[in-house]
């Protein structure tokens, strides 16, 4: 279909400046390191990072897999908890008044401080890492979903009531679909934050993962490998973000364009 092809071409064209900027940045980086003769343990050149990664790629791959598992589990947990929680908060003023302060408390605690406590309490396994990831990721998702559920135009609610819709019907047939663009806004933030959460947890208590790789590499001044982990983490965040965007475009095509007309107020 010509319009679809045209659209793809337009999207490619829109992404072009970003690619040029990224490639230009790496070239400037490489050039600066070579020109000024910066030592590798201070700032490795991109080529050095690449060489270091390729040399031990099975190890890097294993660490990446370990982090990805934590990220995905934590992200899934945050989705499973946030959506029902948001519905609960949006459904009643009393529940919202009871839960919101608690949520804010969980957000004001630095997760880096919480991680060692959780690891002592729950053991050095996957569980505390997933919990830390979840704690970092779930809050923006709850806030965005609640905002979406409450942003439904009052006329739409009135229409539902005029059609004698009950509260459950109102939530499922009107409020929830209306909140979809907001939910996806929250999901994108949560996806990016999940990566942050997983690395924070790995810094404190893990024997695998990219966070662990960064720490052990730096302990031996193997800076290129640490940089390699950082780059992989960035790519992981971008891929997750794009995956969520793509899911939105496929499942809710009306929503991806609606974002412009209904910006999340959170």
């Amino acid at each position, binding site marked *: 279909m010509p319009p679809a092809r045209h659209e793809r071409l337009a999207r490619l064209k829109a992404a072009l400046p970003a690619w040029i900027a990224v490639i230009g940045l790496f070239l400037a980086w490489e050039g600066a390191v070579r020109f000024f003769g910066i030592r590798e343990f201070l700032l490795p050149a991109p080529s050095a990072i690449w060489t270091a990664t390729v040399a031990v790629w099975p190890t890097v791959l294993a660490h990446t897999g370990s982090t990805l598992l934590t990220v995905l589990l934590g992200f899934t947990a945050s989705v499973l908890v946030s959506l029902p929680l948001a519905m609960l908060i949006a459904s009643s003023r009393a529940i919202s008044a009871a839960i919101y302060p608690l949520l804010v408390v969980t957000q004001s605690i630095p997760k880096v401080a919480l991680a060692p406590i959780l690891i002592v309490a729950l053991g050095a396994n996957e569980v505390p890492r997933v919990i830390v990831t979840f704690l970092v990721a779930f809050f923006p998702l709850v806030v965005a979903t609640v905002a979406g559920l409450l942003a439904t*135009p009052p006329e739409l609610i009135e229409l539902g009531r005029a059609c004698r819709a009950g509260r459950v019907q109102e939530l499922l047939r009107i409020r929830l679909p209306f909140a979809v663009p907001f939910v996806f806004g929250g999901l994108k933030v949560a996806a990016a934050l999940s990566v942050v959460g997983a690395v924070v947890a790995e810094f404190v208590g893990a024997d695998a993962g990219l966070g662990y790789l960064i720490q052990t590499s730096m302990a031996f001044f193997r800076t290129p490998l640490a940089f390699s982990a950082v780059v992989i983490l960035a790519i992981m965040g971008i891929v997750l973000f794009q995956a969520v965007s793509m899911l939105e475009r496929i499942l809710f095509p*009306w929503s991806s364009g609606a974002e412009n007309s209904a910006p999340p107020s959170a």
Partner: protein
Amino acid sequence: MIRFERIGKTFRGRDGAAVEALRDVSMDIAEGEFVAIVGASGCGKSTLLRLAAGLVPASSGGVSIDGSAVTSPRAETAMVFQAATLLPWADVLRNVTFPLRLMKRIAPDTEDKARALLATAGLAGFESRLPRELSGGMQQRVAICRALLQEPRLLLMDEPFGALDALTREEMSIELLRLWAARRMAVLFVTHSIPEAVLLADRVVVMSPRPGRIVDVVEVNLPRPRSFDQEGTDEFQRCARRIRDHIFGNRAARAA
């Protein structure tokens, strides 16, 4: 068919003070009659509509349809709002059938009826478009079709053309009359356009603000089908002037 009997409505304002929106409003609307309500902002027109829809309860007095009190929304009334308030995720056809699906009143021929209705409203071929792909006038047409598909005996319209430009507005008024003529349900139409009220209605109810009261009921004795050509007639001018005098005369007296 619907009777408002000595309606009073008092709201509690945001600052806790009581605001009297309606006082002692009584009127009857007959089967198939087109009644317009005109008045300045804050005269309780929309509140009256919501009372008729059973969305809000009266503080005193009551609304009854065929003698039975209106305490909650009923199947025989349908409402059109100032904004089209379409579901952004549903296409035109599913928007039009949404109330019936919500009320589980879907019949095998509902979809055919919806398509036919959309065609008479000039929306043939747009059934699978999303609301955001339509112009404001087209969206409001969809909203009117959505109300008409419920086959209401009483259609409540809250400034349905208020958000449209003047040209679209005239076009839509004539179209509404055409749709109404084919069905003949009672219509209660809130507006603040005097010509619109005179053009559309059999009777124009004039209300004054704070608290909302009925100050006059103007019978419009113009033959149907109506058109904007009638705007030049003596009867049209007589009605419009009488309504204007009530609304602006009131204001001039207060300013003096």
